[in-house]
């Protein structure tokens, strides 16, 4: 299936925005990172996390009119021969930017275990917490100009991305209601009192180090507080706010927590944040799958499509990987309650930007699939393969051994990257 830019679909909201001259100008970001574009810019990762298990059959891999299809309809996309569920009309117009994997396979069918596996690429282990992909990216590609956290989770509640053996300072910085409020960043007191508090704290810190000559170094207590105070006064915090975004742009992303999250994600990436996860809940549709998926995908579609288009317009798509994924897919069978259950063996994810193939589809769910057989996909892509590929695309050595705090050497990636997911030089260097 060759990528072919469709002429039908470029009438999206983005054109309207462009016509209004709203989003064509670059946002006034201060950090150096914002001024760099394309290849000179270090890559960032935005993960759109579909919490609960998005159904591949109601989204990226519809089978209307078959026993597994349910009530879904399919619509054509901007890639010739590629159809998506009619729940994704705006994404259908962006598929020429997307590398679609319909043969993703995982090993875990439980929410907690599945989320852990799909966030880290390693199965849950009692003696070691593995870092999430975003934590590895932030750890491996630091940017001294960024004063706000390099690893951010937006709108996520449980299973947030952890720093694992890299240390809890690499845990994602969590913002539960993105674009509305970032908690704990305002002291809420006058400047006089804030200054008095800081002075008092310094004084108590000095008292504490008396007779404990390495206390400051060992505890890093004052250091952490100093960095927290620096963050509280950073101009870059504006990236978390949406006040200066035009209403048109906000509407294009959708008036939902997830839509605001995607817009904040774009702003964070612009200032140089390395890894952002935006979470959309509500996909665990054991009952009434069709309507349940529909209502959630209705929030995903405009946000994802607008994010891709905006990143492209701002010349940031080549340096930003956008990955839409969930802990597992849903069963081909529809249960008596009209729901679909957990299905890790064979599901889908979509990736845009950052040197990934565009307008390409890998694998497909066969119409005669049954869950009971624990089917193995044709042309499968495993989670570790996908993550090593993303690391490779970002310029991170997936094969690097990290020595964990207890001296155990662990490789960041647990499988070799897959060259055919990547373009140009990136693909060539995989095999080299």
């Amino acid at each position, binding site marked *: 299936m060759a990528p072919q830019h469709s002429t039908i679909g470029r009438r999206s909201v983005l054109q309207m925005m462009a016509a209004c001259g709203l989003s064509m100008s670059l946002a006034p970001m201060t950090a150096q990172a914002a001024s760099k574009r394309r290849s000179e810019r270090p890559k960032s990762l935005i993960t759109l996390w579909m919490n609960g298990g998005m159904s591949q059959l109601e989204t990226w891999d519809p089978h209307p009119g078959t026993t597994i299809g349910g009530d879904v309809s399919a619509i054509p996309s901007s890639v010739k021969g590629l159809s998506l569920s009619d729940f994704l009309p705006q994404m259908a117009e962006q598929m020429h930017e997307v590398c679609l994997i319909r043969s993703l396979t995982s090993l875990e069918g439980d929410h907690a275990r599945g989320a852990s596996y799909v966030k880290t690429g390693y199965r849950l282990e*009692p*003696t070691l917490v593995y870092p999430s992909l975003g934590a590895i990216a932030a750890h491996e590609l630091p940017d001294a100009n960024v004063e706000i956290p390099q690893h951010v989770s937006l709108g996520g509640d449980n299973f947030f991305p952890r720093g694992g053996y890299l240390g809890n300072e690499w845990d994602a910085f969590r913002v539960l209601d993105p674009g509305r409020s970032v908690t704990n960043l305002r002291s809420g007191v006058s400047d006089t009192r804030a200054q008095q508090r800081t002075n008092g704290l310094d004084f108590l810190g000095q008292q504490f180090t008396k007779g404990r000559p390495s206390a400051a170094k060992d505890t890093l207590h004052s250091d952490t507080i100093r960095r927290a105070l620096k963050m509280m006064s950073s101009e870059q915090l504006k990236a978390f706010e949406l006040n200066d975004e035009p209403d048109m742009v906000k509407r294009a992303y959708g008036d939902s927590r997830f839509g605001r999250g995607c817009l904040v994600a774009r702003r964070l990436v612009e200032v140089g944040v390395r890894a952002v996860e935006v979470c959309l809940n509500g996909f665990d549709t054991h009952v009434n799958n069709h309507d349940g998926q529909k209502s959630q995908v209705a929030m995903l579609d405009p946000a994802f499509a607008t994010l891709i288009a905006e990143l492209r317009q701002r010349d940031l798509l080549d340096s930003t990987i956008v990955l839409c994924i969930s802990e597992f897919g849903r069963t081909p069978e529809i249960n008596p309650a009209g729901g679909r259950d957990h299905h890790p063996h064979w599901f889908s994810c979509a990736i845009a930007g950052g040197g990934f193939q565009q307008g390409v589809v890998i694998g497909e769910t066969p119409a005669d699939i049954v869950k009971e057989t624990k089917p193995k996909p044709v042309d499968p892509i495993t989670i570790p393969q996908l993550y090593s590929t993303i690391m490779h695309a970002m310029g991170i050595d997936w094969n690097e051994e990290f020595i964990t705090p207890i001296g155990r050497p662990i490789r960041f990636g647990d499988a070799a990257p897959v060259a055919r997911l990547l373009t140009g030089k990136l693909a060539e260097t995989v095999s080299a």
Partner: protein
Amino acid sequence: MVFPSTNLVRAMKPVAILFCCCVIGLLAMVVMKAGEADAPLAVPKPSIETQHIDESVSRVNEWLRQRWSNEELEPAEMADDLTVYRRLSLALHGTVPSLEEVVAFNADSSANRIERWLAMMLEDDRFAEYFADRLERVLTGVEEGQFLIFRRDRLRSWMAEQLTNDRPWPEITTDLIAAEGLWTSKPSSNFITAAFVDEEGIDENELAGRTVRAFLGQRIDCAQCHDHPFDNWKQQDFEGLAAFYGQARVTPGGVIDRKTADGKAIEYEIVDPGAEEGRIVPPRFPFHEEWDSHDESRRVRLAKWVVHPDNRRYERAIANRIWGLMFGKAWYDPVDDLGHPEEADADRDLLDVLGNEFRNNGGRLKFLIRTIALSDAFRLKSDVPWADEDRYARMTNEWAVFPLVRLRPEQMIGSMFQAGRVRTIDKNSTLFIRFMRFISENDFLKEYGDATDDELLQQSGTIPQALLRMNGRFTRELTETGLFGAAGQLMRYSGDDEALVQNCFLACLTRLPSPEERTYFVDLFQQIDPAIEETESDAPTVQAANDSKISRSQQVRDLYWMLFNSPGFSWNH
């Protein structure tokens, strides 16, 4: 040393209760509580257990002193009683002591008051509940999942009961490994049910790994896939141990061992990657097969082997863990990665000494806790005025100075919550207070990040944690100067500024301010312009940035804020 009188504590109560009454409307209950509260506050009279542990403690001290002398290290001086009391309260109850307790502790002038209070703290329900939580984490982890939370809850309550009764650890261990029955009526069986995976059954590997980590203090998990790179564990050791759980089943009738199915013996089978057929793995002990009891039940055999009187790994493991829970840092770190025990007498270490005392005194956890708490290592100061950085680091390595250890998340919120109240929060607190503490603790842990099951792993603090402590709602609410909280009550009833500063220090840091600190903070209060109108609270409205006035209640809040955020609060020392 001028302490707040019991009268001060007493004066605060009726107001608190009245307020509580208005707010929650639990009229009848509060009236009953008020009746209790009007009784004069009695200084608790702890009883000393008759069990004599002096000899055990002196053997531990002898080992420590010999070690320091070999290393040519002069240990730090002995810490004052209040400092030791704070350490005990953090380790055994998970919070700093309440101001009420500090006052009572101070009023006890007996020579052996640490021993008396230690014994009393071990009898307190807070100890059983808090320690059950710590031990239960090791047994079942912190993973969230369907039913897991309920099963874990049952297991925790059961563990608390065992601790209250001071049941010997080998008996507890046997009950956990070999339990048969329903997860509800036989709560110890939840050690097994926690490893149950839907559609797949019991995960024998997880149980084998947990058994070795929790009870033998060793990590065998990596031998699940390959031989241990640096140790003697072979893959077949792991498989042989997992096979002891190979007949365990979770059925509607509870956890059982099933020996046959359809007339055929049930065997533990492993399918190797790439293999078509599985291979049968019989149960096998990795070492000391002569300890095998040849019991009919595989799990009973395993349990008896684990707790066998000659199995030094078993006592060393619990000694290292309890040491870790007392200090916040295990003798050997990580807590469950001990090497194989040394054979030669000369090479025996502190864990052998402790383990031996533990074993010879009935294998009781309270005995072990008391032995550690009364040892010199636990009583030393954490500051050494005469040591340079290098010497201080060497002393820390050799436990010749009390180590600086960051409070774990549950200790942090527990301490903030306790410091925000004058009275002790325990089972005698009102339902409202206990409920508030439960909710606050859960919410805080969610935001602050709970520790994993490896909670003794030393982790540095993070910026989001600092932000939460500085600007979060927990700090804001717990420092409010209303009628209900400690900040407000201390402000109203302390008398002069000096007493106020001192009481805030005692409530938050369990110590009196140094002369410099006293001067610094009393000065802040004396700078307040009395003409400034009192603002009761700066929450939830945000104060204007350019408002330069500071009222007395704001100053109290700021003092509390500074103490909450100071290293002396966040670190055990």
